[in-house]
Every structure is written in structure tokens, then in C-alpha cells.
């Protein structure tokens, strides 16, 4: 028991142990609610909600009416859960960043490569996030909704997507890191 408690308090688990936990969550999702995990859809639901409130005419299209109807969906609940899961995880290891000085830009490797300026981190992360959400739409899901959820059902889509992730990610990393790759 003490061993388990000590392990939970660790900042970083073996990826194999954490992976087993995620695998069980994937099974539980299908078993308990006949649904798949997926994070990217939630942002589309919320974007639709905001869009319909601000510019109803522009957001009156097929996508926001039928494909991804706006609202607080099950997907939004999942993302809220993920948020608190991350919070609990960091709390158990005493690594919460709320109110800490480096909360805005905390990764040492990032600072080594790009420098310590927060605006740079935020600008690049913002651009990256736009790209991620758009790409998830094209692909039919993100890392959770397609790679994990599709992969566990053995959908070819998931493995095409994972291949694509490396095809896109490796040259980008090469470009950013150059000689430091």
C-alpha cells in the first residue's frame, strides 16, 4: 500500500504503467458509455457556441448546424475532466504551476532553444494550436480521438494518422533544432 502511494506521488511514472492506465480508460469508455475518447471535438463545440452568439449568420452553416452542433457536449465534459486530471496528477507530485513564477513558460529545453521570452513561447504555441485543431478536423480526430481511439479498434485511419504525425513532426523538429537535432 505504501509502495503504491509513493508511486502515485512520483512526478513521472514509467510510460508503460501510465500507458496501461490510459488503455484501461479507453476500455472503460466503450464499456460504460459505448463512446470513444476524443479531445479536439470539444473545442469545435465551444467555438460553435461562441460563434453562434457573436455572428449567428456566419456560423449558420452545415458544419456548425449538423456536423458539430454547438453546446456543452459529452466531449466538453471529457476535456473538463482531463483538465482536472492534470491538476490532480500535478498536485500529487507537488508540481502544480498555479501562481508559480515560471507558469507562463516552464520548459528548460524550450528556453534553451528559443530563449526565455514568454511572448515567443505563446506566439508559437498559439500558431501551433490553430494548426493542430484544423489538422484534427481534416484527419477526423486528434491524438486521443483518432490515434488512440481508432487504434484500439484497429482502424486503419489511426495508423495512417500516426504515420503522418511523424512525417510532419520530424522535419519540423529538424528545422527548429538544426545542428542541435
Amino acid at each position, binding site marked *: 500500500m505504501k509502495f503504491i502511494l509513493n508511486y502515485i506521488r512520483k512526478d*513521472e511514472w514509467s*510510460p508503460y504503467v*501510465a*500507458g496501461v*492506465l490510459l*488503455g*484501461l*480508460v479507453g476500455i*472503460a469508455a*466503450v*464499456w460504460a*458509455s459505448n463512446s*470513444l475518447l476524443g*479531445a479536439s471535438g470539444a*473545442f*469545435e463545440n*465551444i467555438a*460553435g457556441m461562441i460563434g453562434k452568439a457573436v455572428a449567428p449568420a456566419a456560423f449558420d*452553416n452545415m*458544419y456548425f448546424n449538423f456536423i458539430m452542433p454547438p453546446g456543452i457536449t459529452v466531449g466538453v*465534459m*471529457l476535456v473538463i*475532466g*482531463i*483538465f482536472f*486530471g*492534470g491538476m490532480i*496528477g*500535478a498536485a500529487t507530485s507537488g508540481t502544480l504551476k*498555479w501562481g508559480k513564477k515560471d*507558469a507562463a513558460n*516552464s520548459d528548460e*529545453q524550450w528556453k534553451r532553444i528559443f530563449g526565455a521570452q514568454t511572448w515567443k513561447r505563446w506566439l508559437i*504555441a498559439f500558431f*501551433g*494550436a*490553430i494548426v*493542430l*485543431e484544423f489538422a*484534427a*478536423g*481534416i*484527419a477526423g480526430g*486528434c*491524438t*486521443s480521438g*483518432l490515434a488512440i481511439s*481508432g487504434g*484500439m479498434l*484497429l482502424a*486503419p485511419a489511426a495508423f495512417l*494518422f*500516426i*504515420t*503522418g*504525425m511523424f512525417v*510532419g*513532426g520530424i522535419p*519540423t523538429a529538424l528545422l*527548429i533544432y538544426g545542428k542541435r537535432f
Partner: protein
Amino acid sequence: MTNFIITLVLGVFFGFSLNKAGLTKYNKIINVYRFTDMTVLKFMMTALVVSMSGLYALRGLGLITFPNVPATYIVGNLVGGVIFGFGMALSGYCPGTAASGAGEGKLDYLVPGLLGFLVGAVIYGLSYDKVFPQIAAIANYGNTTMPDLWNLSPFLTVLLFALMSLFLFYMIDRAGWQRKERE
């Protein structure tokens, strides 16, 4: 309502596992593309082996049916993945890990992450009619799985994937398939 609560609890465990695996760190994400730290791959493949074994076993026993399988349309899945990899290497997160990292209190996950996802969702949603149907129409195999598509035994497919994963884990951990970080 029950579904909302179940999903919320699932999300908590999901976010917790992302945090404990270290996936809410920029360096873990970028380093998988540099082959200097394969944590992300080990984490994902372990999760896949566990979940596919469990799900195919449970379906074999008649205890569950599969939900709607994510659709396979080769060009869209692949090209979407390439663009996704580009975005991931820039920001160092994906929608799921960003939500978990935001919960930890990382403001570079919470603010530019949330705003970026919303902007991306608007761009995608407003251009949907002109972009998606055309891409999804190319080489579309529908909501299919590999065993169904190629007439394979599900049991053997899962076994093969598990063995392949174990081989890969062995090569990464013991046979130097992970590059050393330069000083």
C-alpha cells in the same frame, strides 16, 4: 446526465495518466520527433495494446459492441496527420495534453492553447464545406477496421500488434534505438 458524469470521471483518469506519463511537457513531445526520448511512443503503444486486447476480448465474449469506428479516408487521415505533426512540433502539445497541462497551471497551455484551438476550430468549421467533403471522398473505406477490411483474424492482428510493440520497446530500451541527447 449519467453519461456526462461517467465521461467527466474518464476524463479525470485520462488527464491524470497524461500528466504522470510526462506528456504535458514540451520536451517529451518534441523529443519523440528527435528520437532522443521515446516516452510518447511507449505510452501510446502500451495503451493501444491494453485497450485493443481488452476490447476485442470483450467483444468476442459478447459483452460489448464497438462504437462508431473512426472513418478511414487515406489522403485526409495522412495529410491531416502530417499537418498535425507540424503543429505538435511547434507547440509541444496536442488538444488532450494541452487540457491536462492547463490543469497543472501551465499558462502557455491554458491561454494560447485554448485560444488557438478555438481559432483553429472556427477556421475549420467555416471552411468545412469547401475542404472536407473533397478530401474525405478520396480513397474512402468508411468506418472500417483492419480485420474487417482485409479479412484477418482479430485475435492474430492484436497479437501481432502486441509482439511488434514489445519488439519496439526492447529495441528502444535495450538496443540503442533511442538517440543520445547531445551535450
